[in-house]
């Protein structure tokens, strides 16, 4: 039997911060985690986090993970990986170390459970097929193990996780065909949605997935429009040619261990479903058991860290007998500050269930629309929602940007002070700040850019906020940021489009590969039609007129079928090769009129 003063279950942001708070104050604390590496979901996050810089805003998730792990180790936190808490009994806790293939008994005085959450699964036809993943699974494969499970993806759910996954997939070089959302609006931050919209990824609202196509693995998805009660409307189905379906339909707290130990569990949908009861110090219904993070309520990494600290200081206070009320009060104030905004409404309402109240409001809601000094190099902030985030304000060297009293405020720019340095552009976690400057004949737009860089002077296609091509421009200059990886690409664009151009793409030669000679139909047209969901030869014939010319399909039929096969992954032998109709060659009406048939008999 091993003894420790405190046990933390889960080495994610909540658990690590809890352990740090305890270890800093001399508590002997053991952290147990099932994973191969510590950090919870942080190591798989390549995007910059929101919040304030005190909680690492503007750093990327995996970098935050490294800092927390380092801090925990430095403070003497003991970390046991590849180990699962198999059971919590009255006389001992049983750990299962799957590497050594043995169990071990443990006794502790206090427990902080920070087991996080699991992805929700939803039901639709053939939802068991390989090629259907939770969003987090794809992030794990792609960002931790550098493996992409497919080429063409569809994402179900436009909350922050779905939106972030879409952006990360594009960075890894995958195609994202669409993000599907059952409700009538995007649930995640507008700035996250804008990042992928301007790259041309459609977000299709009021739709859900109804079926995965494929026998052994996914080779397509059928979506349908939903009615007001989220039921699919028959006849509105659409098909997407994809090899991977990602479910980003929400998270549910991992309450198993908390329930097992006897902590009171209640059903509070606004907090994520079944959650343990807790008070404002993160204490459960049991005197020596605390919780923090997504297990307590589905929220963000910042609030998870703060809750971890609150729980950790409370446990440290009890174990050491010292007073940490100052630290606890400070962290509680942070929580109040963060949770004032509209995106915390669900959590605020959910916490009322436990008689914990958080105030709302007190932040700036007005979007700036004053006269801008045309011709001056300046920032344009497109951050229209009240989200708890302020690195633009704290990074500005001239004090030109303010978010106001509360961190949820909408940023405003004092254009007299803005010097167009672009520091905020590279710091903004939402990539929502641009640089603009008008000249006599053309204008300059500076775009935050996290993809393979173009060449200077390269001619590019300009894209608007929805990814539509709106003309041509030239790469004027690139300001590289090799430390934080958000570069600024300055584009020379036609005057008058400063507020439209928000992204660009390389010019790819249009291939003029003709497949159907009679009707002059190109390979690209066929491929695009297949992407639109015309995956059958007869459908393509009606849509494109392919094989309806004089040759009757002799030239193009097999080629078209091989393109369908290539795109859908279905062998030609299993495809419907389409009808063969007379006449087999073109013949004139005259020939028919001159025909000899029964009437001459």
């Amino acid at each position, binding site marked *: 039997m091993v003894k420790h003063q405190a046990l933390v279950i889960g080495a994610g942001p909540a658990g690590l911060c809890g352990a740090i708070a305890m270890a800093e104050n001399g508590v002997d604390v053991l952290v147990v985690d099932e994973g191969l590496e510590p950090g919870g979901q942080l190591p798989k996050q390549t995007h910059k986090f929101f919040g304030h810089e005190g909680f690492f805003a503007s750093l990327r998730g995996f970098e935050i993970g490294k800092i927390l792990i380092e801090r925990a180790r430095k403070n003497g936190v003991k970390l046991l990986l590849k180990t699962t808490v198999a059971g919590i009994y009255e006389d001992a806790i049983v750990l299962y170390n799957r590497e050594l293939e043995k169990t071990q008994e443990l006794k502790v005085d206090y427990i902080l459970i920070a087991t996080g959450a699991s992805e929700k699964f939803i039901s639709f036809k053939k939802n068991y097929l390989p090629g259907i993943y939770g969003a987090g699974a794809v992030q794990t494969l792609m960002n931790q193990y550098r493996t992409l499970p497919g080429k063409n993806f569809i994402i179900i759910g436009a909350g922050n996780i779905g939106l972030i996954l879409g952006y990360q997939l594009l960075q890894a070089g995958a195609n994202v065909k669409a993000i599907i959302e059952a409700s009538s609006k995007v649930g995640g931050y507008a700035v996250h949605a804008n990042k992928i919209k301007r790259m041309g990824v459609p977000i299709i609202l009021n739709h859900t997935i109804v079926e995965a196509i494929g026998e052994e693995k996914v080779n397509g998805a059928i979506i349908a429009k939903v009615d007001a009660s989220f039921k699919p409307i028959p006849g509105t189905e659409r098909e997407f040619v994809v090899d991977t379906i990602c479910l980003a339909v929400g998270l549910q707290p*991992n309450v198993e261990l908390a329930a097992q130990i006897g902590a009171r569990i209640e059903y509070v949908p606004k907090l994520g479903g079944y959650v343990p009861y807790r008070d404002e110090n993160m204490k459960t219904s049991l005197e020596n058991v605390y919780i923090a993070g997504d297990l307590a309520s589905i929220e963000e990494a910042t609030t998870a860290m703060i809750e971890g600290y609150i729980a950790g200081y409370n446990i440290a206070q009890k174990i050491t007998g010292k007073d940490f009320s100052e630290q606890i009060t400070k962290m509680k104030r942070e929580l109040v500050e963060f949770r004032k905004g509209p995106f915390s409404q669900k959590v605020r309402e959910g916490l009322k269930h436990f008689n914990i109240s958080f105030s709302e409001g007190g932040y700036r809601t007005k979007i700036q629309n004053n006269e801008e000094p045309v011709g001056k190099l300046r920032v344009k902030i497109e951050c229209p929602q009240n989200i708890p985030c302020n690195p633009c304000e704290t990074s500005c060297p001239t004090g030109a940007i303010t978010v106001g009293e509360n961190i949820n405020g909408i940023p405003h720019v004092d254009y007299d002070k803005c010097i167009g340095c672009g520091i905020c552009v590279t710091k903004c976690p939402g990539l929502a700040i641009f640089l603009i400057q008008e000249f006599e004949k053309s204008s300059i737009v500076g775009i935050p850019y996290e993809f393979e860089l173009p060449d200077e002077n390269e001619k590019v296609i300009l894209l608007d906020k929805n990814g539509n091509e709106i003309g041509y421009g030239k790469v004027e200059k690139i300001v590289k940021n090799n430390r934080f990886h958000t570069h600024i690409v300055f584009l020379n664009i036609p005057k008058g489009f400063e507020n439209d151009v928000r992204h660009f793409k390389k010019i790819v030669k249009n291939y003029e590969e003709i497949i159907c000679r009679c009707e002059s139909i190109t390979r690209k047209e066929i491929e695009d039609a297949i992407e639109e969901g015309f995956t059958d030869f007869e459908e393509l014939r009606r849509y494109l007129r392919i094989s309806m010319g004089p040759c009757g399909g002799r030239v193009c039929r097999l080629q078209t079928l091989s393109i369908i096969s290539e795109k859908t992954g279905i062998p030609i032998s299993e495809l419907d090769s389409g009808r063969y109709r007379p006449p087999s060659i073109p013949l004139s009406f005259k020939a028919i009129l001159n025909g000899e048939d029964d009437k001459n008999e």
Partner: protein
Amino acid sequence: MKRRVLDHPILGHKTDHREEIEFFFEGEKLKAYPDDTIASALIANGIDIFGFSSSGKPRGLFCAIGKCSSCLVEVNGIPNIRACITPVKNGIKVKRQKGKGKPTW
């Protein structure tokens, strides 16, 4: 290993892997990186079907963090190994699991 993301605008070029290692899947010799899990090594090699349910339906990776038990495989004759949180090792013999797998003692 055709499905790798070796160059990434944020994570950079993947250089931290040492030599490739080899393991077996259904008798076929495959390559992996030493920091792979069994799941990531299989996916990288283009293998999506990890096993079959007791009713014969194909089954693959789903959660990748050890929670859902969709990726259970047989490793060196031992069934019910979570491919997603088990590191791949040189020479291991991985097989698709059918149904619940036979326990070994």
